[in-house]
């Protein structure tokens, strides 16, 4: 495994140290990303504790089937991403490349489904603002404000993830010393899984409130 040793940055004494510094850096970034989502999550916490009934009414207006399908799409994309990281680590660049393309395709599928949902919600006057439906209980507009902000911020993160996947898939066409290395694919994977983690919590908070009535 010596040819890769030439590509260690000068501040590191070994390749292992360099890889660990990168992984640690990604985790610090992910922790700060969690806090980036935190104010919106707290807004949701405030809404659920102060307007529980409006929350249930509003949540029943979201699309249960599309939301559930999208969760399955994202969980599967994370699985493929884990396979891609494993393939890149084993230096099976062609396999890693096609897995990354599949991950990006699932990401695009998620965005398309989300777009269909957004379209229906615009039609039903559920987008907060002057055109919001008039006979809604107080708190419902805040629910949809947080819904669009949280899912929109999530979709923005996913878009970045898709672009990273495609860039890496393009780079993986070239043989070994070329970018991306196995570690780079692993770092992209950590980011992708974090975006998945956010959605895992958004799913019950957005789509499953008050489904059983009451």
């Amino acid at each position: 495994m010596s040819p890769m040793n030439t590509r260690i940055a000068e501040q590191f004494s070994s390749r292992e140290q360099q890889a660990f510094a990168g992984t640690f850096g990604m985790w610090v970034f992910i922790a700060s990303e969690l806090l980036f989502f935190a104010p919106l999550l707290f807004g949701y916490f405030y809404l659920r504790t102060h307007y529980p009934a409006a929350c249930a009414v509003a949540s029943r207006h979201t699309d249960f089937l599309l939301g559930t399908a999208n969760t399955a799409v994202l969980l599967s994309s994370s699985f493929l991403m884990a396979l891609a990281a494993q393939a890149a680590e084993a230096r099976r660049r062609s396999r890693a490349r096609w897995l990354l393309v599949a991950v990006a395709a699932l990401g695009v599928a998620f965005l398309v489904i989300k777009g269909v949902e957004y379209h229906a919600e615009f039609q039903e006057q559920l987008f907060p603002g002057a055109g919001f439906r008039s006979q809604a209980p107080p708190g419902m507009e805040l629910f949809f404000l947080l819904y669009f902000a949280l899912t929109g911020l999530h979709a923005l993160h996913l878009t970045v993830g898709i672009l990273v996947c495609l860039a890496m898939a393009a780079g993986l066409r070239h043989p070994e010393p070329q970018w991306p290395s196995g570690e780079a694919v692993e770092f992209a994977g950590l980011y992708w899984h974090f975006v998945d983690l956010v959605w895992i919590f958004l799913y019950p908070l957005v789509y499953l409130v008050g489904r059983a009535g009451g």
Partner: protein
Amino acid sequence: MERRTRPLVLTWLALLALLALSASSAWIPLGWINTAIGLAVATVKALLVALVFMRLRAGHPLLRLTALAGLATLALLFALSGADYATRSEVKAPWQQPSSVAPRLGN
């Protein structure tokens, strides 16, 4: 199936099974327990993704500490902001259009 991919496949199947559990249990009328189940299932799913897909289980302890530091900071912010909202009552006031109040000029 390769030996190394087996845990990933099992995790994926477990995640889909948990999704089915949380999606179906939401339709059973249980009141606040519905939310508790939804969040509990989400936590288990998140742990699976973090420990297996993100390799926290096999990784250096410093990485687990970093993840916990993020969660602890989140809990701290929720506790401090939540204390504010929990101890103040909301005074309902009708929304007034600016034009409905006559401007007070002079004197």
